[in-house]
């Protein structure tokens, strides 16, 4: 990514510079660079174990980078904890779904409102006017999000009892409840059939427009990403081996090699 491109498109809402992360002797992510510009949808692909989820974990503060720095909306997040980063407007979903399984669907979404809560503890204990207004707003917005995700019917059901596809959509709803600026989706289409992944594509475009989001999406389903993103990055063994438009990436010799190598290994 050239400096020129950066100036053309305004300041990045999220940027990573030379970010590496090692686990013992293994370099899971090596010299990773990324600029996300407001409003775009960027793809992150690569074979299994390439380091994609590790990138998400670095961007959300689950892991500290071994080297390099990351900034979100002009703030260096080097030593910040995940909750602080969430407060800057970064939300994510998980490859292995991490819902609060014993809570209802509605409660899950309401937990997502955390970064926006302004109610004081005392206000909550005496149920002040401001507290009640905020709780009512959370409830209303959570219901709206569920409506949008097609989960209104099941709002009172325990999250753990939902079908797989519903759980994935609930994770997106929960992430959106905090009104993030940047949404990181880790394999949102995993386990979806063709029709469902087409629906999901439309849904992701809709939420991008409606909530003014910048989205980074990890996905193995090639037609899904290729149809969704304007540009994408390819990771292999922690290294960024290619970046560009879907057409450029598809034709890139290293990408073909990485994916063919994986096919051959199977």
């Amino acid at each position, binding site marked *: 990514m050239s400096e020129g491109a950066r100036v053309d498109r305004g300041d990045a809402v999220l940027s990573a510079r030379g970010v590496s992360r090692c686990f013992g002797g293994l370099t899971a992510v090596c010299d990773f660079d990324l600029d996300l510009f407001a409003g775009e949808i960027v793809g992150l692909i690569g074979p299994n174990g390439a380091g994609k989820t590790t990138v998400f974990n670095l961007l959300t503060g689950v892991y500290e980078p071994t080297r390099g720095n990351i900034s979100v909306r002009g703030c260096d997040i080097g030593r910040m904890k995940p*909750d602080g980063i969430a407060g800057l407007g970064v939300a994510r979903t998980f490859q292995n779904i991490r819902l609060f399984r014993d809570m209802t669907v509605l409660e899950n979404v309401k*937990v997502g409102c955390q970064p926006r809560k302004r109610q004081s503890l005392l206000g909550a*204990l*005496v149920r002040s006017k401001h507290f009640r207004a905020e709780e009512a707003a959370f409830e209303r917005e959570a219901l709206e999000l569920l409506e949008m995700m097609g989960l209104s019917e099941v709002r009172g059901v325990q999250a753990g009892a939902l079908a797989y596809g519903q759980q994935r959509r609930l994770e997106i709803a929960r992430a959106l409840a905090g009104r993030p600026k940047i949404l990181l989706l880790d394999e949102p289409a995993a386990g979806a059939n063709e029709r469902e992944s087409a629906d999901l594509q439309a849904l992701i475009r809709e939420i991008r427009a409606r909530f003014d989001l910048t989205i980074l999406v990890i996905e193995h389903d090639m037609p899904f990403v290729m149809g969704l993103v304007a540009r994408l990055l390819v990771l292999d063994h922690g290294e960024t081996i290619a970046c560009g438009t879907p057409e450029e990436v598809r034709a890139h010799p290293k990408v073909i090699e990485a994916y063919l190598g994986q096919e051959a290994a199977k």
Partner: protein
Amino acid sequence: MDFDRLLFFWGHHFVLLGVTVSLALSLNLINGFCGLFSLGHQGFWGVGAYMTAVLLTVLPSGEAGLFLFALSFPLSMFAAALCGLFVGVPCLRLRGDYLAIATLGFGEILRNVAINSSFLGTSQGLSVPNVIRTTLEQTFGLNRLDARRGEMIFYMLLSAGVAALTLLILRNLMRSAHGRAITAIRDDETAAELLGVNLTRYKVLVFVLGAALAGLAGAVYANYQRYVSPNQFGFMQGVTILVIVVMGGMGSFTGTIVAGVLIYALPVLLSFAPGTWQVPVFYDPTQGGDGWVHRSPKDLWQVFFSILLIVVVLLRPQGIMGTREFSLAALFRRKPPAPPKEAGA
């Protein structure tokens, strides 16, 4: 007179039941709702009780007695909350079993401090002046019996009031965004943190608030019993409270109340067993007669306690109420519809 027998016998148990339920409610916040494992709740209770005792014995009471009595409640809460903060901040880096051991250690350290401190009355304990009875006798001019009756009724109301206040505070807390943050920590700490929940802040909050409410129960207890000693706040008392929380359901306030009544009532009801009832407990041929050694049921309450616990754990491992709350409205509401199956998933 019959009324007095009822009042003094059941009133006494009512007051102590209120204290027990208050303690179990605040422990449920820490262990049940937030998923931290504290074994030191009796310590915070003891701090509250000793704070009250020291306040009322060290300072000259007399005229100011009623004022000091009123002051003992907020001050005991504050002292226990402070202890909660001191224990909580370093200990909350620990997880699961380690936190349990650290908090257990805290409880035992406090007990040993009390045993070895002459200021705190060593193992003899401290006695607390009877402010309420004195006030009733001197200020209101009641006779001895009426003053005792008034005192008992006062403490029954106080104990029920404190339990109700504890319930109200905790229930309102849990029905707020703060409460949802606390439950989220229990269910999935990492996910909660990624959704913007400040783990340290909420764990310390839970610990400090739980401790403060235990301190409040301690103030009621010390004022009512008019005596505090290290053995009243030992590990076994902590275990009893913990058993109430586990049996009622980790994460259910109404479950805690139901289990609190059950467990508190067990030894009281057993004490009514006629002295002629004898249960053979073990066989010793060197003893006279047929060799069976008998005990009265009232000496065996711990056995019944264990049996009750085993039955609950076998039949309802999540506790009597699980994480649900009992409400009359819910009884009459119809069940929510089953989740519709998602097409193709």
